[in-house]
């Protein structure tokens, strides 16, 4: 997934000062908001509910933007304003240059057919239709021929791993499978934009993690622009190229997962982020992975180069025979040395620009060290290299550990603040860590591969 803030890709969805006020004479609510009244005051004074208040941000092509906030913060209302399942009280929604709010009834219908698909929290499968009939619904109402739409529906079922389930009724499926059907139904019409309103919130934690992984993998192939809603910070960190944090209908911060975690814009975000206080508990040791092939000081530059090439790395850590860390060697320097017929790696190793941290280094601070993109070495008190940490593995470990941990008490998905905050700060190190180990390593591998390819 690309990072919209860095690349010059074009904005697919532009939200401009969106307001949604519920009640009679909603316009008045906007006037009151402009006068500086709070949501509660407006509710008491004018009997108007402020759903969304002055929201503006862009979603770029191919980007996954996660909108998150506590229950009642206006996430569902906002996403429904995008395809006008709800009429915004004011503001513009511009999708590929078209102002959706200006479309008439028929134009809107055609626009929905072309541009959007939506996935719902409680799946919203049609119970009277079989799985495949559900999946082909979008094409059916567009008047696509039965054979073609059946074929395309079966293809999307294959895509989400539900081959052979087409003739079952939704009632016979488990929650995870139902949401796969919901996803397949959304993908069948090949929309430009996927709108997902808490698509995974109703699933139990393990299935939910699976679905998240699968959506990420799937999106690498189909490359959709996704607006994803969640009230769960871990999910947001994992899924989002960028995160939009909402409170009481307003946007409080827009940023990448790292920015949200490391530079919370307001106290509110900080409190939200504090729920991931697993960062305090987790240390470098918990999120590091096995040192990938290392170069020894007595290796020749060609050997080091080959090790890098074999594992697809752009740099390698250099250690003594004892395992003691010496420095880092980039592929560039190694190639240079090989050309100049330098004998030992030792001579060309970069000893200055290496970040190394002790085993008990808190993960929270690791973020800033990792932003350069270079991996960080983790060493013990004797400077022996014990592991390495890359940026991807931190985020992966955070979300996996956090999720696995409160997997058991996830029953009330309503409120992220009380599901995480207090109970996690009291966590014994051991519990969270052991849960983190395996998945973190897997995801970190994937992240590195991406880095190497880039």
């Amino acid at each position: 997934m690309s990072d919209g803030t860095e690349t010059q890709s074009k904005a697919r969805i532009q939200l401009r000062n969106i307001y949604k006020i519920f009640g009679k004479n909603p316009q008045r609510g906007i006037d009151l908001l402009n006068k500086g009244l709070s949501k509660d005051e407006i509710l008491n004074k004018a009997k108007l509910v402020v759903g969304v208040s002055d929201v503006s941000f862009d979603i770029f092509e191919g980007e996954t933007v996660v909108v998150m906030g506590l229950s009642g913060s206006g996430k569902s209302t906002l996403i429904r304003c995008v395809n006008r399942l709800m009429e915004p009280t004011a503001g513009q929604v511009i999708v590929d240059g078209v102002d959706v709010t200006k479309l008439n009834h028929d134009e809107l219908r055609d626009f929905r057919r072309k541009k959007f698909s939506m996935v719902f929290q409680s799946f919203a499968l049609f119970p009277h239709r079989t799985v495949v009939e559900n999946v082909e619904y979008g094409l059916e109402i567009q008047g696509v021929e039965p054979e073609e739409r059946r074929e395309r529906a079966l293809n999307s079922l294959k895509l989400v791993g539900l081959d052979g389930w087409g003739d079952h009724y939704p009632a016979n499926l488990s929650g995870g499978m139902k949401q796969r059907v919901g996803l397949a139904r959304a993908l069948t019409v090949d929309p430009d934009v996927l709108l997902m309103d808490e698509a995974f919130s109703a699933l139990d934690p393990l299935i939910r993690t699976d679905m998240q992984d699968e959506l990420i993998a799937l999106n690498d192939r189909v490359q959709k622009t996704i607006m994803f809603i969640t009230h769960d910070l871990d999910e947001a960190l994992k899924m989002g190229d960028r995160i939009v944090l909402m409170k009481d209908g307003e946007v409080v911060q827009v940023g990448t997962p790292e920015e949200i975690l490391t530079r919370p814009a307001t106290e509110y975000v900080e409190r939200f982020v504090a729920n991931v206080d697993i960062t305090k508990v987790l240390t470098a040791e918990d999120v590091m992975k096995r040192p990938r092939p290392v170069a020894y000081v007595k290796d020749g530059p060609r050997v080091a180069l080959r090790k890098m090439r074999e594992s697809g790395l752009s740099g390698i850590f250099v250690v003594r025979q004892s395992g003691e860390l010496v420095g880092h060697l980039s592929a560039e320097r190694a190639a240079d040395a090989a050309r100049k017929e330098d004998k030992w790696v030792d001579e060309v190793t970069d000893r200055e620009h290496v970040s190394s941290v002790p085993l008990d280094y808190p993960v929270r601070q690791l973020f800033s060290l990792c932003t350069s993109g270079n991996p960080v070495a983790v060493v013990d008190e004797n400077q022996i290299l014990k592991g390495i940490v890359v940026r991807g593995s931190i985020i992966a470990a955070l979300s996996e550990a956090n999720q696995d941990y409160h997997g058991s008490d996830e029953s009330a998905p309503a409120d992220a603040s009380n599901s995480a905050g207090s109970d996690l700060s009291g966590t014994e190190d051991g519990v969270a860590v052991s849960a983190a180990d395996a998945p973190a390593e897997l995801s970190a591998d994937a992240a590195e591969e991406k880095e190497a390819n880039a």
Partner: protein
Amino acid sequence: MEWIPRLPLAQWIESLLDVLTDALAGLTRAISAVMQTGIRSFVNGLGGMPWWLLLLILVGLAFVLADRKVAIGSAIGLFFIWNIGLWDPMVSTLVLVLLATFIAIVFGIPLGIIGGLSDRFYIVIKPILDFMQTMPAFVYLIPAIPFFGLGSVSAIMSTVIFSIPPVIRLTSLGIRQIDHELIEASDSFGSTTMQKLLKVQLPLSLPTVMAGINQTIMLALSMVVIAAMIGAGGLGGEVWRAIQRLRPGDGFEAGIAVVIMAIILDRITQRIAARDRK
């Protein structure tokens, strides 16, 4: 409190009815004539059939529409009715019930759909339906006579009015109670209003609509019996005659036949509704 003048409500209603009957005389007479022939040919058709053939047909229908248990029960019940000599009145009552239900459905379902889709219409129609259902059944008989004369047409018309509220109400309700997310899902893919109605709203409200039809049939049956007072004949006519001649035995026999019919019709329509639910 003598000085408060009595509200002449009865007079008002009567003059309104007078005006209406005069204005609509041509129309009502035409309807009456057409329906009279329709009913007569129906009754003659079914009544002319050997009783065992009709019994077999009805039991067959019960088997196809419901299941074996209902079919066996129907066979026993219908045989009993024949045995106590009430076959012909039963047939004419059945014809009246089915015709009245048919008309009630033809008008009731579209009205119910509008009520399901439009809040404003629903708000208007809801108190009217409540009013219609709480009004004592007999009252509907009286105005029917000036419009359609004594006999089965008047009986059917008052039966339709009396029994139509449940179909309207439950059709509206069936559409209204559909999970809002399903409607959003349908909209989000760009369905037209008609596509949404035919592919989502109607199929999903079908079980509720069937429950409404079931209630309508039950109300129609009770009303058709009462309508014997204005010459509808059938099983109601038997009861009426028993009352006039003070013969409780005959009255109960006819009453039991009505109960049997009610059970058969109820079980069949309930089974259809249950099947739709699956």
